[in-house]
């Protein structure tokens, strides 16, 4: 079990502040790193991986600084965004090189194990130059995993993968997270982040805007009413009944159903089933319209 | 006063029903764009520095020569001699411009955008080649025109004027030979790599590496070998052709002996070879 800690970290380039006073701790499990383009995600990942010195503050893995300290790579695996690999090697050779450079006692076995983990054994003797983007990506993940690191950092790992490869990579990350590895990955595809992990770190304009479970983050935004779409056997009567509720701040009737805004999440969601039953109205659909990671994210970015 | 009238104009997406021009127009669009690129037009100020520096030096030299010729008619400064004087500048010009024309497209991945349009792959290469050759020709030709104008206006009689015309014509043709050969070699080397520094280095290297061959060949004890020595480097090759066709200022054509036609044939052969290789290169690039 390992922790990655950033305390009071800033990074600037001249007068441009890429990362501004970020403090966060990553523990075991999978965490998604989110943020609009240019928010500083890659800078944060690079500082964690020891490829960039923080201008201020410290970045440590289990208390050890990552900058100018190659020994952290015993515990750390990195999959960077650029998909460069030594094209002229086969995946097998590439993994063997990685294992040897880690001074692993049995490089052959470690390479084989990592290739199996990403299901690349069938193509392992072909040159990497002939691979598709997704296969390269998996090879790079395998190389990052060859020494079985406690911490795995991935920058846009799903980029270029096809649907099946995405599914497989998500499963892999999930599995590693459940096994107690500390995993941080950045992604723009929020549906996928949602599927892999509910825990996120959101960076907006270089600042850490929110951390934790995104549903919990949503509940904390008390100034935003919760929006639900409801479809029932009698939308109009249900609307009237809901208007009587103190927790409901607004109801709109549309052709497709009701849009309800609730100020108090807990009392509304508890009251709705009872009201519908009491009125004899059959609710056929209840959808939270702004509970997805997507809407949580856009609220954070707008704020 | 009439009632206020208002109109909402449709500024949404509009379909295009105008003409779509054919191959010749597409080719000339590529050619003009290439020519502008060569001189940094339509690009940043930084891209203009080098080409215009070279242009400035060449014009300055041309003007000085024109002045010298006006004062001392027998100084032996001919139009072709001017071109020879500019040899190294032309090499540097090609080394900087050729990579801008083709290496950049390779590096930036622009080729798929071109080849998904009506433009043919072969036309791409021809247009770039024509643009570079024109740029070099303008670089060498325009100062000659200046020199010619100075001489023409200071001519005492018509016969002197016609002599000038007879001199500048070959000068411009000689410049065209330089342009074709250097553009061909430069573009071929540049099309092999997307890295502009490598391309520039490669082009300079071709001229740098071949010069010592000429040096060694010309000290060989065989007269035939000496006379063939100039074949082995692009700049001396064109020099040989010029010597055969127009003679030198001091009338000395000994150094190529009777091989003048061979020099011309080799020049044409090298240009044709470069064009063929360039075509092959782009067929390969486009299909990968």
């Amino acid at each position, binding site marked *: 079990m390992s922790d990655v800690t950033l305390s009071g970290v800033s990074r600037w380039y001249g007068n441009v502040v890429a990362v501004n006073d970020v403090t966060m701790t990553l523990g075991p499990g999978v965490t998604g790193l989110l943020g609009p383009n240019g928010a500083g995600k890659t800078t944060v990942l690079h500082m964690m991986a020891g490829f960039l010195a923080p201008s201020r503050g410290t970045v440590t893995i289990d208390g050890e600084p990552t900058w100018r300290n190659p020994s952290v790579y015993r515990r750390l695996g990195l999959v960077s965004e650029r998909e460069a690999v030594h094209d002229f090697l086969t995946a097998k050779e590439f993994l063997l090189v990685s294992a040897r450079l880690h001074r692993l006692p049995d490089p052959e076995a470690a390479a084989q194990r990592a290739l199996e983990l990403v299901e690349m054994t069938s193509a392992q003797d072909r040159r990497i130059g002939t691979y598709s983007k997704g296969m390269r990506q998996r090879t790079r993940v395998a*190389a990052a995993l060859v020494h079985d690191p406690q911490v795995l950092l991935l920058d846009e790992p799903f980029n270029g993968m096809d649907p099946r490869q995405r599914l497989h990579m998500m499963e892999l990350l999930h599995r590693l997270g459940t096994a107690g590895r500390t995993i941080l990955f950045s992604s723009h595809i929020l549906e996928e982040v949602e599927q892999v992990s509910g825990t996120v770190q959101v960076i907006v304009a270089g600042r850490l805007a929110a951390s934790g479970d995104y549903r919990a983050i949503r509940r904390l935004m008390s100034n935003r009413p919760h929006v639900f779409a409801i479809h029932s056997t009698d939308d109009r009567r249900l609307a009237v009944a809901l208007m009587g509720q103190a927790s409901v701040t607004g109801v709109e009737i549309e052709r497709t159903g009701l849009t309800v805004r609730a100020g108090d999440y807990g009392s509304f969601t508890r009251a709705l089933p009872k009201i519908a039953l009491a009125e004899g109205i059959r609710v056929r659909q209840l959808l939270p319209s702004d509970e997805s990671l997507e809407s949580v994210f856009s609220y954070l970015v707008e704020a | 006063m009439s009632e206020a009238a208002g109109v909402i104009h449709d500024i949404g997406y509009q379909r295009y029903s105008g003409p779509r021009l054919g191959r010749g127009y597409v080719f000339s669009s590529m050619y003009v764009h290439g020519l502008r690129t060569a001189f940094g037009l339509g690009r940043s100020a930084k891209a203009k520095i080098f080409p215009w520096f070279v242009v400035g030096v060449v014009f300055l030299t041309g003007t000085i020569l024109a002045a010298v010729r006006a004062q001392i008619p027998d100084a032996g400064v001919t139009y072709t001699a001017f071109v020879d004087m500019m040899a190294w500048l032309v090499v540097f010009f090609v080394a900087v411009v050729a990579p801008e024309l083709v290496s950049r497209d390779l590096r930036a991945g622009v080729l798929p955008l071109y080849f998904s349009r009506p433009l043919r792959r072969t036309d791409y290469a021809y247009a770039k080649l024509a643009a570079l050759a024109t740029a070099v020709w303008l670089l060498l030709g325009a100062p000659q025109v200046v020199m010619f104008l100075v001489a023409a206006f200071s001519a005492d009689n018509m016969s002197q004027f016609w002599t000038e015309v007879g001199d500048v014509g070959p000068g411009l043709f000689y410049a065209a030979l330089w342009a074709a050969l250097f553009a061909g070699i430069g573009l071929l080397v540049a099309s092999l790599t997307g890295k502009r520094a490598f391309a520039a280095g490669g082009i300079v290297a071709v001229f740098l590496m071949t010069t*010592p061959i000429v040096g060694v060949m010309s000290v060989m004890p065989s007269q035939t070998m000496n006379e063939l020595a100039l074949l082995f480097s692009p700049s001396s090759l064109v020099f040989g052709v010029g010597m055969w066709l127009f003679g030198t200022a001091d009338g000395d054509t000994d150094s190529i002996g009777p091989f003048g036609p061979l020099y011309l044939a080799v020049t044409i052969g090298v240009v044709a070879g470069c064009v063929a290789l360039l075509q092959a290169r782009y067929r390969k690039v486009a299909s990968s």
Partner: protein
Amino acid sequence: MVPQTIAWITARGLFGRRRFLLLIPLPLLVVGLAVLSRAFGVAPENWAQPVLVGLGLAVVLPVIALIVGTGVLGSEIDDGTIVHILTKPLPRWQIVLPKLVVATAVTTVTVSISLYVAGVLAHSVRLGLGLALAGLVGSLAYSALFLALSLVTRRPVLLGLVYVLVWEGLLGNFVSGTRVLSIQQYVLTIADKVAPTGLLQSKVSLPVAIIMSAVFAVGFTLLAIDRLRSFSVAGETS
């Protein structure tokens, strides 16, 4: 095992790229011209200077060292594969030294053999050996320089060309002060002192040549190691 692995992957990278093909014609040119001159019985005084110095020591040696020296590290930085090697728990000197050894070895083999042959043809085995030794020293100094250059600038090839062509080539001929910082002059001196034939003209003293070659080799290697320790990957890409 680590140094061998780094050396192995570096060599694979070097020979795996097409750029490597550029290494073949240059030495062949040197040998070819020497053979030709010899075959036609040209006096060595006439061709030794342009072939051995003008082409061999002043062009072929630095250009090959430049291609190889930037190829072992610079191109890895350029295409991003360096990240794979850097994310290993290795002290950085263990990465720099094997790469320097590979670069020096490849350059020496390519350059010294052709120089040796040309030297033998021009004068004697002694001149050949002198040139080959000079080639080795030059390879080491140039490789260290270009390796370090790959780490301090994003355009090592361009800067290297400027050093070779402008500093050593142009200024070296006109401004005598620049010769003290010119590897080309050290190499020339070493070859000339090992085999004093009168064919080569050395312009700096032997101690200067030896000491400065060592300073170049060690200094730039240390610089490269230090730069690699603080190697930063450019921040936000978008």
